[in-house]
């Protein structure tokens, strides 16, 4: 039954979300209906409990508003000092994000999530600060009132009559790990207010009196509880998917919202967002640009674009479409994107055109299968334009000059026709002269656009009347029928002018669009052939500069993850610190974004599938370039293509290096194994033959026997020397691969003693291993080699018959293994030197055999395991060589439970 199985894509998304959540901090929001319900109090009470159980709790910002009970709770919790910001000569306090990131507590308390930061802060909103804290892995507790939630903002405004401008996007609220509702009944809140327990600033006291009406409070309470219920619904759904309790499939259809030029577009957007989240579907917001709308004043057009931006923030995909009839365009778009619901703002029918059907009814007539949701337009004003989005004065004046020139040309054209027609007046009918003027109107419409065409129409009528219609050189008209001529001429001129300029506009839009897509395909084609990072950077920079008319630069981190500072200087005013932040946080910053919006440059992260590949910095000549969503998306597409190319180039390099490394490793390995084969084989014969000599029949004479034994011993020594040299060579090449498995250290020690027995002679070895010693993940062959070398050392430098002790015990997060002997010990000052290659504990002329590789090998092996080897001082004398091995998380042992306890910790002496 296929329907019982959870969708693998969904499960994958689930797993990925869980992984992201593991790295991220945990966010808990104390959510309340209004001020005074006790959110801060509840947050502090919870934080205290955690602090008492040992969690590092730090208060980033806590607004106690002078409430004594709340202040008492804050007592004993570390409070982060605030940052002082000077605004207009007044110094004010602000939450210090960098201090919080540097302090890195486990849990940070950040009150009032919806707060708007003072100008000059990194982010414009506090929730963005919290986002960065979470991304850095810090848990955050915060508080939020229902009226600050973006999608409920206008609803609350409608209820209370008070609009707040500080809002938190719903997407952020919905990604919180936990939302705790802090709730008290309205009567109780009013009682608290009356008792003066709720802080109310004097200047807004009267407004607040209006706000804290029982009706308001009950409505707010209902909103808060409902919103939380929606959230819980989502949680339940997520849980169901995870547990496969019941397959709940989202419908594929999504929701389309049309944004119009009318005020109150945000209300429509918020409604659509709410509807989409209730239905659990994706949604899109589009704006249909008709020739008429294209002529709206810049402020109105920017208002529409801002509305689209709001939609984007609330989780919509946005697009600007163009066409003559919005109804047709919307229906086409909805069909092609599988949207079954269309949300539109309700427009008032114009009183002077009562017969003209509204957009909604036209859409309904065009597509009967589509659900059309008509949303009442709120009467609230447009969003305030952020500083960065207001048009450049330079830009505006340039446009003005251009328009002025167009109108001058129009006047000139009409005058020319009048002059040209004057000598023809005696030969031509007036009707034909009218035709000449109409021709001018058409040409002006084609060349200069709608405004000049209208001007040309009126001018033509005026000039025709003044110069050609008798009585000439007067606006008076002798024959009344000419009035009809003027009216028809004006109407025809206006209609033709409008049509031609409309066509011209369509053609312009079409060619811009074609330009954009051609630019993308050309860009992609150029990038596809490149094989070096520097080439990619050059090509991308060139393209982006040409396309967006500005200065651009691309910063790519090097192998040590450092950004190249010199590339930043290509752009005046660009800042390396911001670039670094963008790279680390994978968030855009600067012009037109929410982060450092005051900058004149836009910083875009180059996000590729595997990781961020760098930062694109663009400083456009005109800020307007980045305001059009299509333009912005174009830039993002360019950034993405660049990132993918950088990643591709990176992996080409990685593959080449890997190939090279494999090749050289193969060569080295074959050399080493050939060497070891060729050296060991004759040695094996030598050792074997020397030994069989001493056992030969008939028995050798005593001196001969002595020689044979000597031969065998020396051959053995040579063999172990070769062994050491080969081992060192293998380590020196730097590519000793550890075959780490989980081992019982006792076993490794046992094998080392067994193989070192000939070198140790009759020296007894005592082993003591702490009982709670866990398994260690080591390459047993190599660690045995370490122990063997240490034991062999003891065999060389201590008098015969003295005891050697090996002990092993866990020491913090590592295992400590010590080999102690009762010999002369290590000379003072030689403790580090003896681990060097070809260094020996005795003078060069010593009869003690060896070349001084044993300890160097031991050190290399231990360090490859992530441990340390050193000489420890022993009070009772002798040498003590200690090495440590990191303890990991050993795998689970066999399930079988051993019924009886094991014998005590081992220890014993064998000789």
């Amino acid at each position: 039954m296929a329907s019982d199985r959870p969708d693998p894509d969904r499960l994958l998304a689930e797993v990925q979300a869980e992984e992201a959540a593991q790295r991220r901090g945990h966010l808990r929001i104390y959510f309340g209906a209004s001020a005074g319900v006790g959110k801060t109090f509840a947050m502090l009470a919870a934080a205290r409990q955690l602090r008492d159980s040992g969690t590092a709790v730090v208060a980033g910002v806590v607004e106690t508003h002078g409430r004594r009970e709340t202040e008492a709770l804050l007592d004993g919790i570390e409070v982060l000092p605030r940052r002082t910001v000077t605004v207009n000569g007044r110094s004010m306090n602000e939450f210090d994000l960098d201090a919080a990131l540097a302090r890195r507590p486990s849990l940070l308390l950040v009150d009032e999530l919806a707060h708007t930061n003072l100008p000059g802060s990194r982010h414009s909103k506090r929730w963005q600060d919290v986002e960065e804290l979470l991304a850095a892995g810090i848990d955050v507790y915060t508080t939020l009132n229902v009226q600050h939630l973006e999608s409920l903002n206008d609803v609350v405004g409608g209820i209370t009559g008070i609009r707040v401008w500080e809002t938190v996007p719903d997407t952020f609220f919905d990604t919180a790990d936990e939302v705790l509702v802090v709730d008290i009944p309205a009567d109780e809140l009013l009682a608290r207010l009356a008792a003066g327990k709720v802080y109310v600033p004097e200047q807004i006291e009267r407004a607040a009196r209006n706000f804290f009406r029982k009706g308001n409070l009950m409505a707010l309470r209902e909103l808060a509880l409902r919103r939380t219920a929606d959230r819980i619904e989502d949680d339940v759904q997520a849980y169901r998917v995870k547990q496969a309790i019941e397959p709940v499939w989202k419908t594929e259809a999504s929701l389309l919202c049309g944004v119009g030029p009318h005020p109150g577009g945000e209300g429509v957007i918020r409604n659509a967002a709410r509807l989409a989240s209730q239905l659990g579907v994706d949604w899109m917001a589009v704006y249909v640009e008709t020739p008429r709308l294209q002529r709206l004043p810049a402020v109105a057009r920017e208002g529409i674009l801002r509305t689209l931006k709001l939609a984007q923030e609330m989780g919509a995909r946005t697009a600007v479409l163009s066409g003559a009839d919005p109804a047709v365009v919307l229906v086409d778009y909805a069909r092609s994107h599988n949207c079954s619901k269309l949300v539109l703002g309700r427009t008032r029918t114009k009183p002077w055109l009562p017969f003209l059907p509204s957009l909604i009814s036209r859409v309904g007539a065009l597509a009967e299968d589509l659900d059309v949701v008509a949303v009442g337009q709120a009467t609230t004003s447009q969003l305030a334009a952020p500083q960065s989005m207001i048009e450049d004065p330079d830009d505006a004046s340039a446009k003005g000059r251009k328009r002025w020139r167009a109108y001058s040309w129009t006047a000139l054209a009409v005058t020319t026709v009048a002059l040209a027609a004057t000598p023809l007046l005696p030969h031509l009918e007036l009707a034909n002269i009218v035709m000449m003027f109409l021709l001018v109107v058409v040409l002006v419409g084609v060349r200069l656009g709608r405004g000049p065409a209208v001007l040309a129409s009126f001018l033509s009528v005026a000039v025709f009347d003044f110069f050609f219609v008798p009585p000439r050189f007067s606006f008076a008209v002798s024959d009344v029928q000419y009035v009809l001529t003027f009216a028809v001429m004006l109407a025809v001129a206006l209609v033709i002018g409008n049509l031609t300029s409309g066509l011209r506009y369509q053609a312009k839009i079409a060619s811009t669009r074609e330009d954009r897509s051609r630019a993308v395909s050309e860009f992609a084609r150029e990038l596809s052939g490149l094989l070096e990072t520097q080439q990619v950077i050059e090509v991308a920079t060139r393209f982006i500069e040409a396309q967006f008319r500005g200065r651009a630069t691309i910063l790519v981190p090097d192998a040590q993850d450092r950004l190249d500072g010199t590339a930043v200087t290509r752009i005046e005013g660009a800042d390396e610190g911001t670039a670094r932040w963008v790279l680390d946080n994978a968030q855009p910053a600067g012009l037109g974004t929410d982060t450092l919006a005051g900058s004149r440059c836009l910083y875009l992260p180059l996000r590729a599938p595997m990781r961020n590949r760098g930062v694109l910095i663009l400083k456009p000549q005109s800020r307007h370039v980045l305001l059009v969503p299509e333009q912005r998306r174009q830039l993002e597409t360019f950034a993405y293509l660049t990132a993918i190319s950088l990643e591709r180039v990176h992996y080409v390099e990685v593959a080449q290096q890997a190939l090279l490394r494999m090749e050289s490793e193969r060569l080295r390995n074959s050399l080493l194994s050939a060497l070891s084969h060729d050296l060991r084989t004759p040695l094996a014969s030598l050792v074997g033959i020397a030994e069989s000599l001493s056992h030969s029949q008939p028995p050798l004479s005593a001196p001969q026997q002595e020689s044979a034994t000597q031969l065998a011993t020396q051959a053995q020594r040579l063999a172990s020397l070769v062994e050491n040299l080969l081992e060192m060579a293998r380590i020196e090449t730097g590519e000793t691969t550890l075959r780490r498995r989980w081992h019982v250290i006792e076993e490794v020690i046992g094998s080392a003693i067994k193989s070192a027995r000939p070198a140790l002679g009759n020296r007894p070895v005592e082993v003591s291993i702490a009982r709670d010693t866990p398994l260690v993940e080591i390459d047993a062959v190599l660690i045995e080699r370490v122990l063997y070398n240490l034991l062999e050392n003891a065999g060389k430098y201590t008098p015969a018959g003295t005891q050697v002790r090996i002990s092993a015990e866990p020491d913090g997060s590592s295992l400590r293994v010590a080999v102690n002997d009762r010999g002369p010990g290590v000379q003072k000052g030689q403790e580090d030197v003896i681990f060097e290659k070809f260094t020996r504990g005795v003078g060069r002329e010593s009869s003690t055999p060896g070349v001084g590789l044993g300890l160097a090998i031991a050190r290399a092996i231990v360090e490859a395991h992530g441990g340390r080897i050193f000489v420890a001082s022993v009070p009772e004398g002798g040498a003590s060589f200690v090495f440590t091995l990191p303890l990991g998380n050993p795998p689970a042992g066999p399930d079988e439970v051993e019924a009886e306890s094991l014998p005590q910790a081992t220890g014993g002496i064998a000789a």
Partner: protein
Amino acid sequence: MTAPPLTALIVEDDAPIRRFVRMALETERWNVVESATLRQGLIDAGTQKPDLVILDLGLPDGDGVDLLRDLRGWSTVPVIVLSARADEQDKIAALDAGADDYLTKPFSTGELLARVRANVRRAGTPSHHETRIFRFGDVEVDQEARVVRKGQVEVHLSPTEYRLLAFLVSNAGKVLTHRQILQHVWGPGYLDRDHYVRIHMSHLRQKLEADPAQPRYLLTETAVGYRLVEESTEPN
């Protein structure tokens, strides 16, 4: 010794090594056949009916492991592998392919002869593990009664420990790889859990060895596997 001499086949390309191995074996009254190549070795193994094969892994015309696989298709003759390579993976591959024991060059003749004796004795008494009481040191394993005694005192073993010990006993003298032990004692689903073997081996040593840190009978072949010997090889 009144028994007819046994035949050993040495497959080794290095003449001096062949020579001293022959010398060593001949002191113990072995009849020795030498082959220098893999091809010749296979022919000799078929025609000479050796009682023991000593096989070098690095042969000029191929890998000794191939010969071993071929040989194991039709013969159970004990095979001792000689390897110049220090790489444990080669030894494990050879043991898993059916070798009984291995020696890393250079090796002493004493060691070689001890291994030869142990392997031939085991091969000569194929069914001892079912019938006999097996002894090593002061430990007795009574396989019929499934009882283990150390110094006449019964030692309690968990079922897994007993299975492990019994498997070692039935292959006494032979090197068993972790893989072989896991396959036999735990089953084929556990082949990557070699630490199970190590933990249980450590328990067995705690219970049966005088000094578990310096075992005399339950020996470790580092990174390769384990071997149970009947006689302590420690110089005492």
